[in-house]
């Protein structure tokens, strides 16, 4: 019931994500959507945004939750093919093992669009993939810090994602690219917070102890907002003001980071949009109605949010999406 | 008529495990076309001998000859290949594979390296037909009864080996009809000239099927003879080691000395374990329980202590009915039980001697009435002294003590709860001679102190020495109760063997 209420609430603000609504080119089309599951708030938001996008465009969306299993996804896709849908959206749980089922879709002349993750399969087996550019996310965060700090010296501590994970590697790389050549900006410490709030807090506590009670730290860069929220608590516990004494910049744009911005405790976040479906439907519309073959890789916008961007409004909007 | 040829022979076999001589100069010979029963109580050395004959163990001394040639098998597979097959009580085949596969596993007829299922099935049907077995050979083995599985196991052993067949307690889990069917098969194999070793605890089965028998006791060969020449009483006597010619002192524990009835078991039993038993236990008496292994004597003790739950009858103690559904209730009623398998069910190996001594009292007192250290030391000291428990100190783990001292600790554990009724299952097994005598003395002393005791033992001398009364178990039933002058090894042996004697006469 709660979910339904959230959907109703979100529907009123959906214009934010709808982008440019095309002519009713997809009205009445049937699209299957195989979602990974609901392992995180972002994933839940992606699901609800996709449903809203479909509703906006009059698409009949067939939704299948794979519960983190590729075999369920393959089953769902086969089911969609059997039903003769007009198109299929897949958020693939793993990168490999897709060739056969994608070939089946291709043979049935059903275009497949990948959402937010890629696959190791021949590119002609799917229409396009919609994903964010993780390196760019890191770069946007880094550029914000460079512009904000100016010429002052700034010691940065970094809270990495899970060691070896793709987003951790890419977001680190992007950030380093942005601050490269700026001698006044240095990453003093970098540790993994496993993308979780409690590890983010624990690691930040350690950093504060190691850097003169936190007085030497100018900014914290967290690979996701959850770790930043944990770090903010650690900064407060140490008697410092997050957002003022220590700048906080992170990635994802989940509701709680906007709540922190409202309180003046976070400075910037880069959005990993849950709206992968919007660009996907746009491309599908252009393909089905105009025959335009889209680019193979559609990159979503990595939008920067600061306290100037109505954080309270963002919080309310996003809270309704199931984050 | 000439003697049939000897197929398998063991000469002067000795097997030593550490300090223990499990087999001491044992010889046996098996002839073609005979069923040879191998008899003895637990620990007599039967399974050690079998394991040496089938290659699972190597003899320390002595030799094994197959058809006159000395052989030395590195493992059972070699023995199997040489013609000696074994079927154990627990069928060790693969229950989730087909009957046919089980029959030929590892020896499937193949063509160009491929298993030919059709050929296997046809062959399996043909083989099993010779055993009078008509089953779907493609079905899983596990879907058939133990009896069928047993026959498949025998067929497999005979197919693979074909000279000697060892049957280790094959009838233990079979019903009467299944036993008869098995015996038909054994007779048939015997007619085909196989030498068959048959191990069982059921004397009537020995007499029903066997030609000769060999008796072992404490690792020594007691004798081999033709079954035509002996009576069941003789066999029991050989197994239990009683020289009945010597006159025994009548039990020192005269029945008249015992006190009033303390405990009454009335129709107490559990189907499949022990037929209903009615028995009174008086204060100050020892009730000896005699019977062969598997006669139901241990099962009776477990029932009386609530380890297994009785399904019939009732128990009254001092006139009031009590419930015995668990050992906890038995302990609350003042019962104690020294189990037969000391290591598995008796001692807490890693705990100290002191803790082992106080544990039952502590369990009786409950979780929150802890005995403090001083109380523990006092109790442990008292019973260690009373029972002469020899340990370097009472904080050492009990597993480091000798068997006799461990047994005394368990006895002391129960004395610490100030019991009314003690059950001792084979209290002197595996204990050296000195400790043995002490335990017997302790039993007598406890009786004089007014306890009721139930003592199970295979040692007839012992039972005679301390029992006020003796009950005899056979085939999971209480078959006799002996009093006064009747308490002698001779009469006990006759009671144990009675049924077979009647059958033989």
């Amino acid at each position, binding site marked *: 019931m*709660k*979910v339904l209420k959230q959907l109703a609430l979100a529907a009123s603000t959906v214009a934010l994500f709808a982008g440019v609504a095309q002519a009713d080119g997809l009205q009445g089309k049937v699209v299957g959507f195989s979602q990974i599951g609901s*392992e*995180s708030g972002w*994933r*839940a938001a992606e699901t609800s945004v996709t449903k809203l996008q479909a509703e906006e465009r009059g698409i009949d969306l067939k939704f299948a939750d794979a519960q983190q299993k590729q075999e369920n996804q393959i089953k769902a896709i086969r089911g969609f093919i059997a039903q003769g849908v007009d198109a299929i959206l897949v958020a693939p749980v793993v990168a490999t093992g897709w060739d056969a089922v994608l070939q089946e879709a291709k043979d049935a002349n059903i275009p497949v669009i990948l959402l937010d993750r890629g696959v190791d399969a021949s590119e002609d087996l799917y229409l396009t993939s919609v994903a964010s550019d993780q390196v760019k996310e890191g770069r946007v965060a880094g550029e914000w810090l460079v512009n904000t700090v100016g010429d002052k010296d700034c010691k940065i501590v970094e809270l990495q994602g899970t*060691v070896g994970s793709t987003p951790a590697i890419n977001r680190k790389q992007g950030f380093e690219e942005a601050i490269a050549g700026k001698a006044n900006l240095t990453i003093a*410490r*970098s*540790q993994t917070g496993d*993308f*979780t*709030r*409690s*590890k983010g*807090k*624990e690691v930040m*506590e*350690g*950093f504060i*102890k*190691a850097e003169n*009670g936190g007085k030497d730290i100018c900014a914290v860069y967290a690979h996701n907002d*959850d770790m930043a929220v*944990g770090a903010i*608590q650690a900064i407060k*516990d*140490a*008697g410092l003001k997050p957002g003022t004494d220590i700048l906080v910049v992170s990635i994802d744009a989940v509701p*709680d980071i906007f*709540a922190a911005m409202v309180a003046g405790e976070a400075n910037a976040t880069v959005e990993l949009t849950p709206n992968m479906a919007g660009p996907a439907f746009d491309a599908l519309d252009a393909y089905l109605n105009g025959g335009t073959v889209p680019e193979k890789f559609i990159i979503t916008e990595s939008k920067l949010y600061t306290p100037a961007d109505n954080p309270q409004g963002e919080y309310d909007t996003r809270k309704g999406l*199931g984050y | 008529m000439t003697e049939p040829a000897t197929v398998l022979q063991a000469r002067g076999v000795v097997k030593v495990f550490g300090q223990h001589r499990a087999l001491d100069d044992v010889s046996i010979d098996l002839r073609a076309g005979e069923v040879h029963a191998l008899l003895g109580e637990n620990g007599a050395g039967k399974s050690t001998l079998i394991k040496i004959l089938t290659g699972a163990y190597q003899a320390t001394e002595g030799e094994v000859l197959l058809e006159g040639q000395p052989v030395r098998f590195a493992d059972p597979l070699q023995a199997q290949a040489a013609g000696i097959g074994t079927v154990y009580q627990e069928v060790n085949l693969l229950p989730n594979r087909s009957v046919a596969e089980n029959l030929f596993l590892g020896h499937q007829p193949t063509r160009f390296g491929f298993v030919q299922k059709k050929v296997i099935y046809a062959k399996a049907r043909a083989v099993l037909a010779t055993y009078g077995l008509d089953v779907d050979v493609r079905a899983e083995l596990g879907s058939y009864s133990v009896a069928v599985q047993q026959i498949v196991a025998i067929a497999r052993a005979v197919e693979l080996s074909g000279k000697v067949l060892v049957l280790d307690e094959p009838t233990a889990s079979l019903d009467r009809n299944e036993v008869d069917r098995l015996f038909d098969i054994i007779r048939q194999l015997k007619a085909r000239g196989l030498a068959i070793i048959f191990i069982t605890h059921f004397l009537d089965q020995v007499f029903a099927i066997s030609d000769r028998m060999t008796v072992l006791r404490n690792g020594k060969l007691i004798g081999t003879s033709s079954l035509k020449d002996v009576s069941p009483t003789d066999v029991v006597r050989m197994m239990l080691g009683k020289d009945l010619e010597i006159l025994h002192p009548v039990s020192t524990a005269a029945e008249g000395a015992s006190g009033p009835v303390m405990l009454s078991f009335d129709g107490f039993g559990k189907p499949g374990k022990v037929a209903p038993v009615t028995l009174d236990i008086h204060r100050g008496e020892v009730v000896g329980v005699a019977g062969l292994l598997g006669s139901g004597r241990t099962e009776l003790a477990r029932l009386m*202590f609530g*380890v297994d739950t009785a399904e019939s009858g009732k128990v009254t103690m001092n006139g009031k009915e009590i419930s015995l559904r*668990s*050992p*906890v209730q038995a*302990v*609350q009623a003042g019962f104690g039980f020294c189990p037969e398998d000391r290591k*598995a*069910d*008796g001692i*807490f*190996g890693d*705990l100290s001697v002191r*803790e082992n001594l106080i*544990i*039952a009292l*502590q*369990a*009786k*007192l*409950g*979780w*929150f009435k*802890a*005995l403090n250290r001083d109380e523990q030391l006092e109790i442990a000291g008292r019973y260690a002294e009373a029972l002469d428990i020899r340990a370097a*100190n009472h*904080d050492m783990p009990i597993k480091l003590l000798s068997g006799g001292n461990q047994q005394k600790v368990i006895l002391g*554990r129960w004395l610490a709860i100030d019991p009314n009724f003690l059950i001792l299952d084979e209290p002197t097994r595996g204990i050296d001679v000195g400790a043995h005598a002490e335990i017997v003395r302790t039993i007598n002393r406890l009786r004089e102190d007014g306890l009721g005791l139930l003592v199970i033992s295979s040692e007839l001398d012992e039972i005679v020495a301390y029992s006020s009364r003796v009950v005899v178990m056979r085939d999971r039933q209480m078959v006799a109760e002996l009093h006064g002058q009747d308490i002698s090894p001779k009469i006990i042996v006759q009671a144990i063997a009675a049924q077979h004697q009647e059958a033989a006469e």
Partner: protein
Amino acid sequence: MKTRVLSRLISPQTMALAAVLLVNWILFPGFFDIEWKDGRLFGSLIDVLNRGAPVAILAIGMTAVIATKGVDLSVGAVMAIAGATAATMVEAGWPAHTAVAVALLAGLACGLWNGVLVALLDIQPIIATLVIMVAGRGIAQLITEGSIVTFSDPTLIFIGTGSFLGLPMPVVIAATLAVLATLLVRRTALGLLVEAVGVNRSAARYAGISANVLLLAVYVFCGFCAAIAGMIVAGDIRGADANNAGLWLELDAILAVVIGGTSLLGGRFSILMSVLGAVIIQAMNTGILVSGFPPEFNLVVKSGVIILILVLQSPLSATLFLRAPKAKTGASK
């Protein structure tokens, strides 16, 4: 008595802790600095205790379970369930004490479930507790509907981040629980009876010990400890993270117990030593954080130290290095 205290002080565990702290101090000279800030103690050493508290609390319950020759893999998931329950309830407007009570009940219920499977149905503990380890996190996700439930209830937050006499609440809770549990098992007969069941369950039954009731009790207690740890972790981040709360902490708890010297084969146990084991693990984690090593080294360093500790307390090294003190310990127990 004196030799007992002395032999405790030079156990492999205390030596290991001293060594880890020493290395931390060498890598980061400010490691032992403690200051008074906003009415509470503040410093790396306090962090070690504070961050180690959830695992220490888990280890207290786990010690009892392992002493019975069991293991409880579900504690991490139970933490998530308890945190999710408490957070969701306070967010729905229930008073904090009700939410805490229900979360504790949830932990007890999970423990009871495990206990029934192990004691009454005789399922191997590793399999029995695997059920909640896998399903429990799903239950927690159902409660939170997949998102992090952020809350602002002061009581719940106090459990995770408050302080008492200058010490962080988690430390106070863990220490209190450790002392109470130790008193409970050593001042009553529970400790001995639990050890008896662990050493030989069959003999325990024959000796008149209610082995099944004891088994039920230790799993229930373990679930209770996990629920407390779960609320601390949730209170600490002011939110219930069903996906990550307590993730893999069951392994840290088992490790703490093993470092504390309780054998996985059951029997002799020491709750205080297990707590010490948890502190050793956390001292390592915090040491890595303040040392500035790149994160790729975390697991390598950790496993290296653990192997060293386990080798030190193995029977072999005990006979090699500690022959004399070992003999004394044996005699004075």
